[in-house]
């Protein structure tokens, strides 16, 4: 009998409390390997807090996180070597050039043949002409591509993306989404995508977790959610959940 592979992410009863505030409340979910899962919710829903706990940056108040078979409470560094994160809200050191930034992270992730990997990413993400430019002098679109290159430097098996296309024009946003689609399909890596862009989630994600006030209030494939709420796009589903119209629909 062949045992099923470990899921990429397994979260059990995850709770984070800051004094009186319950930021994440008894959240449980599993992300299978190779899936792209969307983590949706309004501002303050608990998406970033959940991601920070998955990254080991924040300790849960209670609950358990297992990433790529590693318990984050006991063995987080083994998991961190196999995962990575990209967010337009977390800038890279501005005074370092793009290639210097990538070298730093290649070292931190112990990437062998770092220069070859950097050249490869520069080709794939069209960074060749930006390599010697300080990170602080890049446009939003260029920064996004550099942040993606940083997050792919160690060929992560799990990629966490927080609003990767926010602040991008539609053309650049589409380019990034297309690139991510291809990358995920070719690499087979697992992606957890937190986003406010519902069209992006519909396009990229096979499953969606809807968060509100620290809880997962609904989940399913985009099609299942559209059918359940009798809506034509996820934006309307998002608004139904955000405005507590679930009861009316049920």
């Amino acid at each position, binding site marked *: 009998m062949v045992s099923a592979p470990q899921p990429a992410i397994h979260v059990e009863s995850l709770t984070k409390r*800051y004094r009186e505030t319950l930021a994440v409340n008894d959240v449980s979910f599993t992300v299978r390997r190779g899936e792209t899962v969307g983590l949706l919710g309004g501002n303050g829903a608990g998406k*970033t*807090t959940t991601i*920070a706990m998955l*990254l*080991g*940056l*924040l*300790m849960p108040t209670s609950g358990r996180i297992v990433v790529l078979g590693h318990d984050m409470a006991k063995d987080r*560094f*083994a998991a*961190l*070597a*196999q995962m*990575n*994160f990209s967010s337009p809200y*977390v*800038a*890279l*050191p*501005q*005074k*370092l050039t793009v290639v*210097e930034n990538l*070298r*730093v*992270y*290649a*070292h*931190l*992730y*112990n*990437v*062998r*043949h770092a220069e*070859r*990997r950097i050249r*490869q990413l520069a*080709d*794939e*993400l*069209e960074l060749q002409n930006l390599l010697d430019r300080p990170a602080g002098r890049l446009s939003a679109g260029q920064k996004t591509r550099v942040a993606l290159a*940083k997050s792919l430097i*160690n*060929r992560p*098996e799990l990629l966490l993306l927080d609003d990767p296309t926010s602040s991008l024009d539609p*053309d650049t946003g*589409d*380019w990034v989404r*297309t*690139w991510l689609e*291809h*990358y995920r399909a*070719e*690499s*087979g*890596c697992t992606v957890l995508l937190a986003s406010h862009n519902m069209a992006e989630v519909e396009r990229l994600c096979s499953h969606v977790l809807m968060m509100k006030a620290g809880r997962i209030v609904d989940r399913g494939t985009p099609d299942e959610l559209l059918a359940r709420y009798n809506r034509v796009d996820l934006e309307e589903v998002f608004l139904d959940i955000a405005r507590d119209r679930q009861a009316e629909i049920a």
Partner: protein
Amino acid sequence: MTASRKAGGFATSTPTGVPPASRALRGTPVGDATRGPASARRIWGLMYRHLTLYRRSWPRLVDLAYWPILQMTIWGFTSRYFAQRVGSDVTVTVGVLLGGVLLWETVLRSHLGFAATFLEEVWSRNLGHIFISPLRPWEMLAALVAMSIIRTACGVLPAAVLAGLLYHFNILSVGPVLALFMLNLMIMGWWIALACTSLILSQGGGAEALVWSLAAGLAPFAAVYYPVAAMPHWLQPFVLALPAAHVFEGLRAAIGHGIIRWDHLAWAAGLNALWTAASLLLFWKQFQASRRNGALMNIGE
């Protein structure tokens, strides 16, 4: 941007650099992050990030040596003037004072080299990136210590050369024991900086002013320019709790009488071990607290 992108549409807007299957997860292997050389690589990664800043900025390089040279110039002329006025042995007086200046700068530079390197990560809001990488906290501390050694060398060596050129004071005349004096003083700088780093983790960038001044504020109690016996009796037990006080007593004995006070060196080493352990404990507790309260995510101003 490529022409293909600007043409629009899915087929034509496909990024030119789409990763081929053969190069994705199955491509160049990523090293095993748990092995010894991996640790050295990560430590070097963080050092490289900071060394690069100095390679590109001459004001940063000048800043490393500016204060030690300034201090050396002021104290050199002052000590020579006073030694001539009071008719004491110029060589010994100048030696004691300039040796004090150089060795106290060792404490300050090693402290700043460690703490300012950490602050650089706070200013650039890079701590989040660092702590989601496989870099262990002890590896970060090792990188900060290595940067501190480099920065201290860049600060103190030019001042030592200046002391030789302007005042004919050769710090190496203290003998091989100088290495032990300097090692103890650098360790003192590191545990002060570690305590400051804990304070930054707790209070954010708002604690920056204390980082700059904390070690300097210990100068009056470190017996740098005067013996412990010159201080009030009630203050002496506190002064003798600082490793620097023992090192400077030892320095005066070496320059003034040509003897090595091993008892003072032993006290300095023992006290350093105690203070370092206390600072490491403080840092570990504060690091864990930062992971609980989310400070690592948004530490800044």
